[in-house]
């Protein structure tokens, strides 16, 4: 179905849904729904994004069918074309291979989500149906029918009725730009970056030219925590890992005296401290 036909459907009248629009709806609607469901159920994040793009394309077409040609095109060009591609781009950058595992980590989450989702749908469908099935839509024939059409009418509203929110969005866009820079753009270092030559000089003039001994060399275990042994049996100091050694193996914070005024006992407080401390995340 061509967009021209949809636009045709939009121009001729106001509210009531004609046959061609009904056909369009019953084709595009299920596809949008399929896109949405596909996004939720696809295990691969990239597939999810593509499914969402499908849903958005269909939604754009539905806007056009509903006498909103400008929004329809914006939806397709800006939303699907730009925003979703931004999503995909970031996805490729960070989360491409992290497919969700099938196992749900939080107990009962899926069941509860399904129940609440169905409940929410039921409530919304119930109230919408009750409110609107008997209402005759007025249609936008008059509003879009001004000489310069839908786009100009939107622009007129934007600069009169909605002038302040429109201006306010500028703050939003500046914030977004600023935020993106702040969060992701590593600034230049305050110290000059050392070149290859400097690195070589540092190594040759330093205490050791050869690479550091690996952990566990001549040792009884191959754990990184095991220091390497020199031929005389002493520990090779260079093999001590800085990272592992500087962190105490189990680091419970030095506990202050138990808070006698707490409403929980000492053991409780202790378990809190452990659980609120940073455990290694699996």
């Amino acid at each position, binding site marked *: 179905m061509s967009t021209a036909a949809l636009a045709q459907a939009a121009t001729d009248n106001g509210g009531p849904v004609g046959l061609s629009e009904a056909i369009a709806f019953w084709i595009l609607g299920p596809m949008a729904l399929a896109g949405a469901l596909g996004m939720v159920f696809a295990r691969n994040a990239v597939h999810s994004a593509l499914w969402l793009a499908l849903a958005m394309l269909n939604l754009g077409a539905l806007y056009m069918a509903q006498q909103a040609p400008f929004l329809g095109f914006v939806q397709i060009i800006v939303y699907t074309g730009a*925003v979703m591609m931004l999503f995909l781009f970031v996805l490729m950058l960070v989360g491409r291979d992290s497919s969700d595992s099938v196992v749900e980590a939080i107990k009962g989450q899926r069941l509860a989500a399904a129940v609440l989702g169905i409940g929410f749908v039921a409530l919304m469908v119930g109230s919408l149906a009750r409110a609107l099935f008997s209402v005759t839509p007025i249609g936008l024939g008059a*509003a879009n029918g001004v000489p310069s059409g839908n786009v100009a009418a939107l622009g007129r509203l934007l600069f009169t009725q909605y002038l302040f929110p429109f201006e306010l969005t500028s703050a939003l866009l500046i914030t977004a730009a600023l935020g993106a820079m702040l969060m992701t753009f590593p600034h230049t270092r305050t110290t000059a970056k050392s070149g290859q030559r400097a690195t070589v000089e540092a190594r040759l003039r330093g205490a050791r030219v050869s690479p550091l001994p690996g952990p566990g060399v001549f040792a009884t275990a191959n754990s990184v925590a095991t220091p390497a042994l020199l031929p005389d049996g002493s520990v090779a100091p260079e093999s001590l890992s800085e990272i592992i050694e500087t962190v105490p193996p189990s680091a419970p914070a030095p506990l202050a005296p138990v808070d006698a005024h707490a409403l929980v006992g000492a053991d409780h407080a202790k378990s809190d401290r452990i659980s609120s401390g940073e455990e290694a995340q699996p």
Partner: protein
Amino acid sequence: MTPTYYLLLSALLFSIGTVGVLVRRNAIVVFMCIELMLNAVNLSLVTFARVNGGLDGQVMAFFVMVVAAAEVVVGLAIIMSIFRARRSSSVDDANLLKY
């Protein structure tokens, strides 16, 4: 057929987005689910504009798009920064703050 079906479709899409937020673990996918919710609202707005016979709904949908675009930028920046620190974009892994 009445335009109400559009609204029902919108409600369905919104709910699917909601459920997606609850069950998906990849932060970016969660965020996409939120985008779907916003899109569902847009469909409602456009339909209501038609039902009410005024363009305000379309203008609002337009605003929602602008806002969503800005939100996407900020959101992806935040997700990027936490991904760099953790090598994980799963929302379940961001779990140090609790109780």
